[in-house]
């Protein structure tokens, strides 16, 4: 069809092997050497996920707590490796935005902007050019050289959002900070940006429990439950599915009756 998907997952699975008692010290490694394989406890965090995302699409990801949403984002980031047999393609510079993310708490906003921007592919010259835009957008003019650890959560999120918007990452993974963050003023601004980012052909995957956000912003929705893909596609249909699932979860006896 000519459109190359930016992110594509086929039979994507992720299994964790967890030990009841973690073997993390030299003594334990030596003592447990022969039994290393035996005591493992298998957790299938994700099982057979199939979806693809085209450039410029906004994908909402929903699911109850512990359903594997964060693991999915980590896999796309590349900070975890999928199981054998999985196929996962994720192109471009990817940045994850989550609460309390991406900053060195002991450094000032200035240093953090340079480090983060640079990793997202900007040269220092370009960062210098947009530096005050980033600060201005996040309303942090008075705190440029204050260490991040003194920032409030709202300030941190605003800064992360602002860096991401100015840094031209190709794919954004948003963990629970969709549909605006901060007070009303900033919320409006970030909502606007959220729509503009869509217009600017950027690709966004976001995790949210707010069904209204999912409905308002996403082109497609992926619903996962207990690591398994329940539905992927049109928001209205998937949301109906999700509501059905939640009802089952709240009143298990309803299903049987």
């Amino acid at each position: 069809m000519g459109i190359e998907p930016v992110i594509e997952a086929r039979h994507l699975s992720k299994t964790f092997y967890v030990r009841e008692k973690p073997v993390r010290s030299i003594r334990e490694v030596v003592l447990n050497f022969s039994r290393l394989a035996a005591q493992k406890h298998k957790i299938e965090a994700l099982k057979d996920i199939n979806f693809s995302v085209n450039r410029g699409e906004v994908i909402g990801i929903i699911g109850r707590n512990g359903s594997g949403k964060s693991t999915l984002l980590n896999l796309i980031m590349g900070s975890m490796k999928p199981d054998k047999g999985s196929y996962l393609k994720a192109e471009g510079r990817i940045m994850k935005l989550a609460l309390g993310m991406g900053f060195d708490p002991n450094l000032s906003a200035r240093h953090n902007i340079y480090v983060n921007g640079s990793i997202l592919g900007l040269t220092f010259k370009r960062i210098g050019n947009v530096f005050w835009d980033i600060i201005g957008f996040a309303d942090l003019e008075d705190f440029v050289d204050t260490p991040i650890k003194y920032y409030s959560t709202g300030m941190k999120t605003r800064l992360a959002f602002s860096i991401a918007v100015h840094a031209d990452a190709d794919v954004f993974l948003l963990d629970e900070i969709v549909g605006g963050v901060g007070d009303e003023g900033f919320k409006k601004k970030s909502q606007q940006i959220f729509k503009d980012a869509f217009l600017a052909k950027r690709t966004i995957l976001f995790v949210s429990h707010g069904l209204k956000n999912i409905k308002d912003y996403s082109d497609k929705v992926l619903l996962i439950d207990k690591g398994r893909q329940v539905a992927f596609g049109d928001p209205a249909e998937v949301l109906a599915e999700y509501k059905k699932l939640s009802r089952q979860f709240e009143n298990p006896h309803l299903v049987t009756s």
Partner: protein
Amino acid sequence: MVLIINQKVNSINDKGTNFACIRNNRHMKQITHDSATFATILVHVEKCNMLGSIVGRAVKYLPENNRLERIWKLAQIDFLRRYYNDRLGLLWALINPLFQIAVYYLVFTNIFNSREENFILFLFLGILIWGVFSEATKGSLAILRSKRYLIENIQVNKLDLFISHTISVFMGFAFNITIYLIFAVFLEANFNLNIWAIVPVLITLFIVCMGTAILLNTAYIFIDDIKHLWDIIVFIGFWSSGILYSVDKIVEVFPAFVYLNPFLGILKNARNALLYGIPPDYFLLLYNLTYGLVLVLVANFVFRKCEHLITEKL
């Protein structure tokens, strides 16, 4: 008065890289409180800024490269954090080796009757070089945790983290080696054209440190208390690398050890260049350089195999 100093600090800051930035902010507070320390603070800020702007200028002449810039910035930040959180700052990096030298000097000249020529400089150089290795490897164990914020949220090349950490250790070393050179002039070390050999020696030192740091961190992904084991290895290394006595004495007893421990060759050639003024041992120079390169390649290969486990395990 406060205003003038504020302006001066600012102008210093604007001139060079923003090397003094973190300090600057904190110092502003101090300045308004404590007028007696004005002079010392200014000298301090200017000194650290001088070093920064020299290297900063050198970096500016390089072609604009995103990766180099980033590595340099991370190294700078690392360096600032290590030394500029306390008043004496960089001086701490010097005080430690100086005290070690004083103690070893007294013990070895008075009790063991060491007859090394120019023993103070002999010790100074050995302890400085071993200090680089010890700091570059031990300090690297904090990287994966302290830079976790980058690893998890942005696709950072982890190799950059190791390169920049090693560079930051070498920044402190650059300061120390300058002090050594000043000492060496006064204590009449032999300087001549053979000094060129220090360049390959330092390159070897750099890659050996980096390779070891990467390997150590790979182990750290799986074993939490590798630090204690490493402390022991560093301790053994300190006593077996010819820091306190001539390298030749070890080679006489264990000839093969020179192939195993690159520091025997590194120290020997560093002393030849910066103390005795005689040509390097060319075989060891080349051998160690190759040793270092192989070490980095192997370390990188092993680390790449395991790096996806960082988020899971740490």
